[in-house]
């Protein structure tokens, strides 16, 4: 099963079957989660209605971390085993992870303003998440920074693997240092400190966001595969071969003409 998934042509067939299911379940769960978060969840005893921002902020923060972990593992697999599909998975995941991180930062800022009294502070949690956002951007930029796509992919993979150090720092920043950001409420030792009727919609949103990531990932991987195929076809078509022959012949002529012009 996994081996079959790793062969690009069969991946295309399988992902085409999976995509409609993943995207419809993602849409369904996010719709249910948003409805619960906006209309059913009771106002918080301290924060009132502002607490509803949590239902977008926290799942996107979880996804920002999880997608980075996925990106790093896929990059490691591509570095060690030179598995082409792993490389495509990593490149497909990066912009999605960057988008989740961006949503997390913006929603957090909108939440911080009324509750903390500030849009932004340079505490350990906020700063380390901003670094995560820059790691995503760095990965995306590095992939395209080389003329040879395989060199770009390798350099970006090294960055992704090195950046994994940031994940435990983000997770435990609120425990290791005094931060303005509150410590974990759900993923902690001991029971969650969120009341059950407020926790369940959060988990629905988290599963919905995970499915959304899976659907977007498959979609982007298919696009990248098609793009590579189109490029390969263009390079190997008779027309491309003829164009190359002409190009190879061209420079000497151009040089000669240039030289003779210069002489005069």
């Amino acid at each position, binding site marked *: 099963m996994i081996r079959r998934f790793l062969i690009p042509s069969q991946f295309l067939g399988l992902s085409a079957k999976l995509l409609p299911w993943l995207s419809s379940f993602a849409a369904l769960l996010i719709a249910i989660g948003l409805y619960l978060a906006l209309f059913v969840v009771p106002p918080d005893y301290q*924060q009132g209605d502002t607490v509803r921002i949590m239902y977008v902020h926290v799942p996107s923060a979880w996804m920002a971390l999880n997608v980075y972990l996925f990106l790093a593992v896929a990059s490691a697999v591509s570095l060690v085993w030179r598995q082409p599909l792993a490389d495509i998975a990593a490149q497909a995941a990066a912009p999605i992870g960057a988008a989740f991180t961006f949503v997390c930062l913006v929603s957090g800022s909108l939440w911080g303003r009324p509750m*903390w009294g*500030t849009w932004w502070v340079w505490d350990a949690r906020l700063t380390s998440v901003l670094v995560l956002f820059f790691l995503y951007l760095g990965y995306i930029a590095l992939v395209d920074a080389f003329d040879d796509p395989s060199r770009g992919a390798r350099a970006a993979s090294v960055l992704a693997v090195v950046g994994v150090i940031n994940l435990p720092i983000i997770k435990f920043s609120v425990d290791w240092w*005094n931060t303005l950001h*509150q*410590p974990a409420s759900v993923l902690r030792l001991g029971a969650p400190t*969120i009341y059950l009727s*407020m926790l369940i919609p959060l988990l629905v949103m988290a599963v919905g966001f995970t499915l959304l990531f899976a659907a977007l990932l498959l979609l982007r991987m298919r696009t990248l595969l098609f793009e590579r195929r189109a490029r390969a076809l263009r390079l190997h078509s008779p027309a491309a071969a003829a164009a190359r022959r002409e190009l190879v012949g061209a420079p000497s002529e151009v040089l000669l003409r240039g030289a003779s012009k210069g002489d005069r």
Partner: protein
Amino acid sequence: MSRKAQRLVFLLLGMAALGGATALVLSALGGSLVFFYTPSQLERHPAAAAERVRIGGLVEEKSVKRDGTSVTFRITDGKTDIKVSYRGVLPDLFREGQGVVAEGRLLPNGSFHATQILAKHNATYMPRWVAKELAKHDKNLESAAAGPPPNHFHLALRP
């Protein structure tokens, strides 16, 4: 060793070295990465008069006194407390018994003049009726034991 195994070993060694280096850096940075100091920490290592610092703790119960847009209150960490004066808009979450971070300067008379007040959230979320039930339960306990009220809203304050 095959080339794949070589690459894997190289990757793992690289990650181990990087992890070790990061752990050393973080443990060396340790205390300087804190966002705020507790009143006890400030008492032990008083800041220079001109130095801007942040202090964090709980707003002491019944210490808030408002006068127009000015407000004074005491920040406590359970051991030491410090008087804070501030003029301006307070965040929504600012209230007695809740966590707060004040940024400003220590005055010569030992009190603290804040230029910014940030509220700290305690990571507890519950509907209002649950909070009311809990408060009722606490009152019952209090009258039974006649001790100080239990503090549900403690911050993770570490020296």
